[in-house]
């Protein structure tokens, strides 16, 4: 019954025999041991489980692990490089974009996607882009500020050419 899946999570290859019904989020959390990806609703509304699958943000609670066979997955744990926070992570810290922190990994992954598609988003575009992520603590204002901070930081970074 079990099927073999091979995927790359945060640059490391991962192979596992799984039941076909296993959700990707359970593979990430329980099999790969990366618990930064959270589960908040199981109906793909809240977005706490958002990860990048081949560079696209997806809700890992409504994807089967077997569907991710061969994919490149990035989770919150894979975002900081060489001990340096990703600009979006930095933005959330600088702008107080989190309180309880439960929605934060999903928010950050979605924000990365927003900036990937549009490096210069307006506040309205940021808020529209976060439609699939619920936060019950912040009222979203500091989250919008955090994404804006990251956009400016990334622009400055690419302008300086390094």
């Amino acid at each position, binding site marked *: 019954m079990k099927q073999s899946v091979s995927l790359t999570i945060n640059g490391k290859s991962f192979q596992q025999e799984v039941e076909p019904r296993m959700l990707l989020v359970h593979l990430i959390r329980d099999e790969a041991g990366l618990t930064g990806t*959270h589960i908040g609703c199981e109906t793909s*509304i*809240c977005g706490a489980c958002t990860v990048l699958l081949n560079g696209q943000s997806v809700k890992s609670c409504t994807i089967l692990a077997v569907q991710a066979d061969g994919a490149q997955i990035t*989770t*919150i744990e894979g975002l900081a490089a060489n001990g340096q926070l990703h600009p979006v992570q930095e933005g959330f*810290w600088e702008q107080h974009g*989190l309180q309880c922190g*439960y929605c934060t990994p999903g928010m950050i992954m979605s924000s990365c996607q927003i900036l990937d598609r549009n490096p210069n988003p307006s506040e309205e575009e940021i808020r529209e882009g976060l439609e699939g992520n619920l936060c019950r603590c912040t009222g979203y204002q*500091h989250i919008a500020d955090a994404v804006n901070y990251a956009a400016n930081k990334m622009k400055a970074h690419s302008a300086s050419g390094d």
Partner: protein
Amino acid sequence: MASRYVGQKIKRTEDPRLIKGIGHYVDDIKLPDTLHCVILHSIYAHARINSIDTEAAAALPGVVAIYTGADIKDKIGNVPVASALETLKVPPHPVLAVDKVRYVGEPVAAVVANDKYIARDALDLIVVDYDPLDAVVDPEKTAAGEGPLIHEQFSDNIAVTWKLEGGSSIDDAFKNADRIVKQRLVNQRLAPIAMEPRGVLARYLPGENELTLWSSTQIPHLMRTQVALMIGLPENRLRVITPEVGGGFGSKLNVYGEEALCSFISMQLHRPVKWIETRRENIQNTIHGRGQIGNMEVAVKNDGTLLGLKYKVIADLGAYHQLLTPAIPTLTGLMLSGAYKIPAILMELTGVFTNKVATDAYRGAGRPEATFIVERIVDVVAQELNLDPVDVRRRNFPKPNEFPFATATGLFYDSGNYDAALDKALEMVDYKELRTQQKKARDEGKLIGIGVSSYVEICALGPSAAMPAGGWESATVRVEPTGKVTVLTGTSPHGQGQETSFAQIVADSLGVDLNDVLVIHGDTSIVQYGIGTFGSRATAVGGTAVVMAMDKVVTKAKKIAAHLLQAGDAEISFDNGKFCCVTRAPEKAAAEGVGGAVVQSPAAALPEPNPGKTVSIQEVALAAHLANNLPPDTEPGLSATHFFEPKNFTFPFGTHICVVEVDKETGEIEILRYVAVDDCGKVINPLLVHGQVHGGIVQGLGQALYEEVVYDETGQLITGTLMDYAVPKAHQMPRMELDRTETPTDVNPLGIKGVGEAGTIGATPCIVNAVVDALSQFGVRDIEMPLKPEKLWRLMNQN
């Protein structure tokens, strides 16, 4: 004392682990051999259980055990309620239903398996034979005596009646009134929806006879006491740990059945047992908030002066009591004076049992209901008397020199300047100009509305005499031998950021680096008994306990420093981490041959001061632990604990103003501006205060615009997922403009009042007032929440 940190926007020390995804919430804690517990819930609102067949489920490979109500009813005590209301009926609230179910979602059986998928499979194999009964759903019909009995041992479904009458004669107030203004006002049921659902991990070690319980809760110590009583384990054998907690909003200020159930099962099976709530379970089984249907009547003079207020309310309590269920509407009663001088107040409460999950504390817990009805009725008064709603508010405010202000409900508002907050908010929106623009827009056919809400809330809960389970808070401050500082707080932060704000207070006072202070909370084996985080109390009460404990540490450190500097206690100053000899040379004491012991000599006998000799807090800490050169009768170590009992509540206040435009064609509401001026006393960290206000406002707007728990006439929950229960999203919410006034309080030495719930309390009536104002030309004087576009469209098109 230097203020390097207090009052500054300091980034949170909690954040690095959370933004990297390496913090640990309950479900992130993995123990070997853990069993997974899942729960079967009632599909009926009201039914008799004839039988439960678990045979097929038990036979499924991987299933380890199944428990029903019959299995545990004599082994696990009932879910507790803390209330001393005299007339309260308290039905037994079993952890798993016995013989009868009383709401959709009531736990009926528990499956324990090696794998969570198998556990879930097994649920489908359990067969429950139910006899459905008519459901009790409508609170008003229930209060009128309709419907079958939910608890057969009682004569009716009235859980409690309660009356609060205070101030001057209410009858006289209504007799002397120029006018009596009446309005039915409803606070609908809401679901708190913390983003992390609840979760439990229990591990019993039989050799040590020790149970560790990881729980997503706001009250680890109260949880320990109650779970110990429920399962019959000595309290000191039970350790409750709250790891990261993903939001609470009151929903985790409770003792639910699952903590006791998992503990019991772990003790039976000698393996760790984990239960993680699903979102559907969270909306079905975790407490709801609000649920009040009220009728307001106010006696007024033609100039808008309020003479008296009557609030007759039916509270929809649900099928069973949770910890604070019946207490919440009584808090509404206490706050019925709002921001106003109302000489006579009467509240008559009827709390009813219904076939629904219990209501209990949800952000604000009784105060949003009070503020909503008071702020709405003030607007209705203004509308009836054709007065500006701002003028009616101002006319009835107590003035700054009238504080402490005694309300007719028996409270003493500590301090306030309500006009100042109102003025600032009016200035921010340029109110006069705004009204002119509104008129102009109306002439052009645009529906612009302006809503004002001036709230007062009750915070820093609270003096123990007024609380069901202690209102004090505790702290230990310990300076380690290396000079690092450890703070143990009895509060249990879950997003509020007290690891940072408490460290700010301590770092400033002890003159150490912020990063040298570690704040530990949420572990009953490490932290002395505490009460927890709720009721906007953590900093006002828990922070004060930290200050008091720190004062004790400084007093002792000063004594040791004096000894080290060979001076008297009174001759030592402490600033920025250094103890300094300020008044005289230390040689005198040494010359007197007392070996550096503290000598209290007459000042005249002392030589000239020789200031400048110093010793640091770190050096004193080391000396305190080496203990080979301490003053006589001084205990080694540098640590102190304080249990702080507040003498009063605090009463933050403010004014919010909202401007909306309602689309005539669709009934959709656009928020054009949202301005909030809050006064929470002194501020430790403005960044955190802004965060609390923002989040609070959005939850308040959520109640006004979108959120509503709906049960149908058979008691089925219609809004059981986030597809149906509408939590506000980023693109629906406005950018808020915040400002503050700062009126200190003398209730605590920090001068702070609390801010966790203010936004929620101020926001709901503010936007409803704005929308009603926008639709006033249609003769609208109230709209029941949530303000759905369809409702608005119908009101605009009813003729």
